[in-house]
């Protein structure tokens, strides 16, 4: 196709109008490289169409400048704002929508604040109750253990083979009494201090059993225990029980002149 054929065919006009196919576009571009004068022809056609559109364009210089300003401010702000601007904002419904959304948002925020506070308080209360429950469980367990211990002691005391031996006071404890509960079949020995006291903190009462004339250590007496009976060392047989005042921790042999309680079996 010659240069003139191209011009005469009207393809250049259609190219500018945008009604050419992609094959025709390639042809035009190829021919424009081949004949650079065709580019001037294209420019002339474009210019004619631009001028024609301008004659149909009632755009005042002042308005045009304003629009240009708006366009530049829009392209120089970030894209999210730009796309939001395109939405017409003049609709009453739109404004009401915004107002309603804002109100809803605020309401929900306030509501959230309150519910979050309520939730916090509820959580604290729950934690308190759980702590209380644990405490009560502990107390109950302690009572149960105490009851079991008491039960055992009751059983021991009411056992027909248990011997209840009264230890009579002498010397410093002349007006005092204590008890030993001794069951030879179970070999259990319990000491009942019955309100004994000891002023000297460096000393301690020690229980002895007298077996065949010899003293046998039965253990130290704990005056701080809350229990009524204190379990002592096991023993099969004894003729008498005695208490002496010894140094803290006890002695291997009783100090005979500190003996203060004595009872025969």
């Amino acid at each position, binding site marked *: 196709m010659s240069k003139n054929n191209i011009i005469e065919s*009207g393809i250049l*006009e*259609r*190219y*500018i*109008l*945008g*009604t*050419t196919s*992609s094959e025709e*576009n*390639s042809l035009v*571009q190829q021919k424009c490289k081949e004949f650079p004068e065709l580019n001037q022809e*294209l*420019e*002339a*056609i*474009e*210019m*004619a*169409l*631009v*001028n*024609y*559109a*301008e*004659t*149909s*364009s*009632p*755009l*005042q*210089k002042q*308005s*045009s400048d304003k*629009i*240009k300003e*708006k*366009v*530049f401010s*829009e*392209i120089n702000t970030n*894209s999210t704002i*730009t796309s939001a601007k*395109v939405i017409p904002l003049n609709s009453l419904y739109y404004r009401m929508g915004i107002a309603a959304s804002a109100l809803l948002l605020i309401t929900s925020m306030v509501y959230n604040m309150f519910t979050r506070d309520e939730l916090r308080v509820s959580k604290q209360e729950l934690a308190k109750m759980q702590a209380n429950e644990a405490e009560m469980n502990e107390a109950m367990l302690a009572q149960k253990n105490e009851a079991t211990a008491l039960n055992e002691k009751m059983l021991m005391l009411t056992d027909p083979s248990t011997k209840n031996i009264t230890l009579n006071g002498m010397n410093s404890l002349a007006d005092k009494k204590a008890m030993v509960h001794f069951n030879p079949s179970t070999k259990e020995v319990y000491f009942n201090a019955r309100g004994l006291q000891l002023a000297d903190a460096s000393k301690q009462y020690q229980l002895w059993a007298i077996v065949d004339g010899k003293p046998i250590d039965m253990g130290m007496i704990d005056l701080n225990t809350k229990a009524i009976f204190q379990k002592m060392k096991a023993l099969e047989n004894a003729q008498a029980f005695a208490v002496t005042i010894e140094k803290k921790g006890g002695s291997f042999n009783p100090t005979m002149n500190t003996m203060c309680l004595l009872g025969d079996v």
Partner: protein
Amino acid sequence: MAPKQTYTHNELVDQLQKKDQGAFSYLYDNYSKALFGVVFAVVPNQEDAEDLLQIVFVKIWKNISMYDSSKGRLYTWMLNLARNLAIDHTRGKQQKMKSKIQSVSDSVYALKDHTSENTASDFLGLSNILNELKKDHKEIIDLIYFKGFTHEQASKELNMPLGTVKTKVRQAINSLKELTKKEIFN
């Protein structure tokens, strides 16, 4: 009236695709009036058309990377963008105000009155083109150029053989070229 060419077509495209705002300013100065004419031919309402022109140029700026010079000239691409936006706008409005939509010929007549009183000084006498362009040429050019008809659609619309449409388009543009030259050199 002819744009002062400080960029060749390819230079302009290059600079725009590099997001050069100077080139964009040049583009606005040289093509806003023509693109407004295109928009106004479809949406013959001054305020709406001005809003649309703003959207057109923002879109040109945002989408310039999508312009492919192997598919046509930059002006053709901008023309399509402007016309499509304007047509979309009327379609959106069509539901509400069908009766207000005017045919292309109506809008151009309306615009003739408008231009002669308001913007005569801007036109430097070029409005004569409207008078000197043969009526049937103008009809075809307006359909294809402003309304976005293909040659085939124009042939059906005007009840005219396709060959005749093609010839008349070429004749119409030729006379536009002549008239443009005449006006520029007068």
